[in-house]
């Protein structure tokens, strides 16, 4: 495995011709980020994953369970798989929030997600997600890189390895982090594993400098750097004049120009000032609660427009891990993310990009139907549940509207049309026009794939056009 060297490693793939002037005799495989054809006509060509780290409570947001409300405060009539045995209780916690049906599809959405209710006919809610491993770290890896172990390439790494990117002056794969910190498992969330390090996610930081090593410290930006580069160019030209036949020296001069171009392109892509007031309003950038997350969702859209293949927007560490005080903290988490997430779907749609861009909203787990931390109504929470949880997907060939799969009457276990993480991955690869067995990388004498021999199946019920069998 190779963790990233420089933060700007995505630039490595841009000039494969110059990558190895002294090449050993045997030809080695070369890697780049040039766009590559899919194995069959793709429905999706780009993806934004809004990763809700911590585990949003499906029974309070997307998977209503009237049975729980009837039993609220009583003993749970079954067996619970707990994570934290010390604070475990078997007292049922009915959802404190009301659900209503929306749109032509009649999808149930909680009152905590008013904006999402406006786009229900564009999204497909999967109610039967399952990873089956009750820790954040392991379940994150399952959802995001296919297996519960650390060290395998993330989904974005696989997609850019298979397809490259449609841009050559922006990263192919972007991870956008929250100003209040990294998700659980930190930088491993966008790790390339053993794939070459140019397939690692490039972090767009929540504050300046947004991309590390792409800009100098602020006081050296602008004219100071221009002067430095002009002088450097003179030095290099002078040295080239003394060694006029050294193409390597000319290439390095060109590399400085390329680097400067990338600075310009990235700066342009990250600058949201040109966006209209209406767009700002749509993403909630004009409101304190949604400003920060809204900006990141808007930047995600701008990156996708400019040919970035995969963008993953992270919430802070354990943002949705509501073990306690769920009555106040879950609404806060929803408030921050609901409007921008719905705006992204609307915005991509109005720009004609939703058809080819997958939007994913979800985390690594959901939550239990019983109380955790029985310390009064304001303090109660819910423990982990990876046996049945919800997320939604939109665009790029995913079904428009409706729900898929079901959990038991208490929302604990997925029981109908279970979607394992590898089924979700198989479906994504299908939409990107990729054959799961052909996106392969040889490592340690093994042919490695995203599914890694797990029995992942395309989930026909969540796509618009089921594959011909």
């Amino acid at each position, binding site marked *: 495995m190779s963790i990233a060297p420089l933060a700007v490693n995505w630039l490595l793939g841009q000039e494969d011709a110059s990558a190895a002037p002294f090449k050993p005799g045997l030809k080695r495989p070369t890697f780049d980020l040039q766009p590559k054809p899919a194995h069959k006509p793709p429905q999706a060509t780009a993806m934004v994953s809004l990763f809700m780290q911590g585990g949003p409570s499906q029974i309070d947001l997307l998977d209503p369970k009237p049975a729980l409300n009837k039993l609220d405060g009583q003993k749970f009539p079954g067996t619970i798989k707990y994570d934290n045995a010390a604070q475990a209780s078997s007292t049922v916690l009915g959802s404190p929030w009301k659900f209503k049906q929306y749109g032509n599809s009649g999808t149930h959405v909680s009152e905590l997600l008013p904006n999402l209710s406006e786009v229900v006919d564009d999204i497909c809610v999967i109610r039967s997600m399952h990873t089956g491993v009750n820790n954040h770290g392991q379940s994150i890896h399952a959802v995001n890189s296919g297996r519960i172990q650390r060290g395998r390439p993330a989904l974005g790494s696989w997609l850019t390895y298979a397809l490259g990117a449609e841009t050559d*002056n922006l990263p192919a794969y972007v991870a956008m982090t929250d100003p209040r910190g990294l998700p659980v*498992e930190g930088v491993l969330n966008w790790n390339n594993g053993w794939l070459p390090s140019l397939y690692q996610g490039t972090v767009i930081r929540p504050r300046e400098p947004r991309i590390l090593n792409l800009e100098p410290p602020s*006081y050296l930006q602008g004219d100071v750097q221009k002067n430095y580069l002009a002088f450097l160019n003179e030095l290099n030209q002078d040295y080239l004049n003394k060694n006029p036949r050294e193409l390597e020296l000319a290439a390095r001069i060109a590399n400085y120009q390329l680097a400067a171009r990338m600075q310009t392109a990235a700066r342009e892509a990250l600058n949201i000032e040109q966006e209209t007031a209406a767009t700002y309003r749509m993403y909630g950038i004009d409101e304190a609660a949604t400003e920060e997350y809204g900006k990141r969702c808007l930047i995600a859209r701008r990156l996708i427009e400019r040919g970035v293949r995969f963008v993953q927007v992270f919430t802070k560490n354990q943002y949705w891990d509501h073990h306690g005080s769920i009555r106040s903290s879950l609404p806060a988490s929803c408030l921050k993310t609901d409007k921008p997430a719905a705006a992204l779907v609307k915005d991509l749609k109005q720009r004609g990009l939703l058809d080819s861009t997958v939007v994913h909203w979800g985390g690594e787990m959901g939550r239990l139907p019983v109380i955790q931390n029985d310390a009064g109504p304001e303090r109660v929470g819910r423990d982990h549940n990876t046996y049945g949880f919800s997320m939604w997907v939109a665009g790029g060939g995913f079904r428009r509207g409706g729900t898929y799969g079901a959990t038991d009457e208490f929302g604990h276990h997925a029981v109908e049309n279970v979607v394992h993480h590898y089924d979700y991955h198989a479906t994504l690869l299908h939409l990107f026009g990729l054959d799961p067995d052909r996106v392969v990388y040889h490592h340690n004498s093994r042919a490695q794939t995203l599914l890694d021999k797990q029995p992942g199946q395309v989930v026909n019920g969540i796509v618009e056009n089921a594959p011909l069998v």
Partner: protein
Amino acid sequence: MRRSGQPETIKELIPSRLDFPPRMLRPLLLTLSIVASPLTANAGDVLTYEQHIRPILKAHCFQCHGEAGKREGELDLRLRRLIVAGGESGPTIEAGDPDASLLVERVRSGEMPPIDKKLSDNEVETISKWIESGAQTARAEPESIGDDPVFTTEEREFWSFRSVHRPTVPKTSNTARLRTAIDNFILARLEPEGMELSPVTNRRALIRRAYFDLLGLPPTPEATDAFVADESPAAYERLIDRLLASPHYGERWGRHWLDVAGYADSEGYTEDDPPREWAYHYRDYVIDSFNAAKPFDSFIHEQIAGDEMIPPRSGDLTAEQIQNLTATGFLRMAPDGTGVGGVDQDVARNEVVADTITIVSTSLMGLSVGCARCHDHRYDPIPTRDYYRLRAVFAPALNWKAWKLPQQRRVSLYTKANHEQAASINAEAAKIDKQREVKAQQYIERTLAEELATLPEPIREPIRVAYKTAGKERTTEQQQLLKDHPSVANISVGSLYLYDRRRDERARKIDVERKAKETRFIEETQKRAGVAVTAATLAKFNPEAAAELKRDAEAAAKLRAEKAADDLKRYTERAAAIRADIPRHVFLRAVTETDEKTPATFVFHRGDHQQPKEQVGPGGLSVLEQRLASDIAANEESLPSTGRRLALARRFTSRDYPLTARVIANRIWLHHFGRGIVNTPGDFGVLGDRPTHPDLLDWLAVEFIESGWQVKRLHRLIMLSSVYRQSSQRTEQHDSLDPDNKLYARMSLRRLESEQVRDAMLAISGQLNTKMFGDPVPVMEDAVGQIVIGKENLDGERKPVNPIALQGEEFRRSIYVQVRRSRILAELEAFDAPEMTPNCDRRSSSNVAPQSLFFMNSQQTVNVANVLAQRVIDEAGIDVTRQVTRVWRLVFGLRPTAEEVDAASALLQQQRELLGKATDRPRELTPETAALSTLCQALLSSNRFLYID
């Protein structure tokens, strides 16, 4: 909008080597380019089975038709006459008529081989032509052929398998440039092409080249000036000798060896890649060996069999024992996952053995022996059996059936004195431990009393007795009693801190009550006395009440003051402080043979350890066997160990072994010139390059052997030659006749290697910490996943917490920076530092935009430039011309021209103005320093710094 405009491609500017096949066809270099395809014929050759056809069939067909007794369809393709005889489908070829030949039909249609990898059109064509021309053999074929591998004369006589002979030093027409025999060999090859050596380069370039080459560091301006001023003809030779004597020499050349040895400070194999704590002893041994001019044959012997060359341990290890055991760390360099939970032990162990064989074979044999692990080598004459014979050499030390985990096999460096000292310090600390125990017991008693005091009087004594009664002897009533009163039941040394908190709570409660009492007392007293009373005057009017309040305050203070946990912690800390003086327990990673029974080695069918087949004894490559005087015995009676590795090591360095001396001489050449005489230094086999100068390679190898394997002597021979001292200036003739500089009519311009870039920046800015040896400088991930120097300090969720100061360690040479296989220091990896999986036999030298961005924007570069700017101001004062001159000399080893001074001064003025206005400029930087820093940064970013000409 999605697809942005196609940027100008720089491909137009930089031709890839692969873009120029026509060059390969130029008549001049035809002899040098036979690597293009080893398996197809050149026009005009008489095609024979042995030379042209067998290699194709060996690569594609033998696996099913001939190798290891396999005869699919009754067909054996290993001899012409067997091919003619054919198998179930009848004769395979019809001499003279390719179109009637089954062989051609099957391979042309792609029916055979029945796997994805088909024959190339060229190969099919070659077979067809051979049949057409009568399907000839080079000589009579053997009468009989068994299942053992067959070597043809062509294979036995392959260039690298032939013995090394001292070639005649050729004569040249130009004799003026001859300094060492190397010049004869190079010139003799150039002259027929109408080429000659380039002029000698200038002295500034020469000293810079020699410094980077031997030390990996730039010369100081003073050293450069002294060398330029020294007009003595021996000045250069003295320079080389001085550099060879520098301790930095071992750090530079040791690094080259560490690449092929696959040195890393982590275990690899699993994604955890845990640190390998004691690997650095081996790194230090390598540096030491180069500095001490250890003969390379001894260096090899020690690394392969150091443990077999020393008496077994009795008591303290001697210096020699430590050295030899450390050397065997070479055989412990492979990635090793056996110390990590959850791995399949058998697979992991066998991988360690396989990787070790890869390291040994690529570093010392120059062959990809590993290909023969699962099947006979497709191209080289290395049957699977040979692979396992080689494995048998290492089996007694790396016994996968009786494997020692990394923790179990460490060799302790503790001496008897260390043990004694540790024991006496421990005894001292134990006294403190004892005091702590007594104290702890007192606190428990106190706590018990306090807790009991909160309970109703009648049950106090029963609970106290229950608490004091040992758990097993408690009656049911006692158990219940304790269960009902957990605050007593839970009293223990470990929970005292919780009771400290309860004391705090009690103190708080006393305070609250006291406050209420005080108000009440004041009111009462006021009412009674009829005067205004305050807290301060209460004592005067109501001394009893005041005394009660005072008692309460004291009680609260006492509760707060006597914290059990804090007090006990002080004892613990004192004991730890005493124990800190215990000598550190240091270990070696070594190889030894300790098993009673020598393990048997089997050929693994298809490399699968679960399918052992034929048993084999120790050995080397059969194809070489007839050239070699000695066997590798299964057991050497005179040694406590089997002696197998010692025998192999001695074989490598014996005069009749053709590979090792050539391989090492080639590596030394490679690092001086940027390309090897054999430009595939780890592969001297069929798929590797052929030597550009076979006689020169042999001459170097013989010189090397006969001088007693002196590496420094080889450096001198090479560096004192005219070839090495040439200018790197390319001419039109060079570009048209020999663009890749295979013939050395000039020096090649070379980019600094990763360590050289970092070390030179530290040296030039004056920050370099030249401390040698010891624990590696740690690396960690920063907040975006970039690998930087630093001590990782993460919480349970991998969130970084407080940074830890490194106290100058961060400025040490790159060879001392931790090599975590999965986490290579970003600034080194950007410049092609190798990934050790398991080793690196040839570095690449890339030219990519992240390197530009590193110089333009990275904090590392900006920091170095700031420090350099301050250094220049300290040394040159505030005069701009002197500053510019100084920075030029420090970075380039040159004085600037007048125009360069003017241009730099203009830059400084512009930058001063801009930076003077910059409000976000760090406070410690004046506009002048910040401006000078951008000039420093420009020089450090420039090609003149980054390249050695």
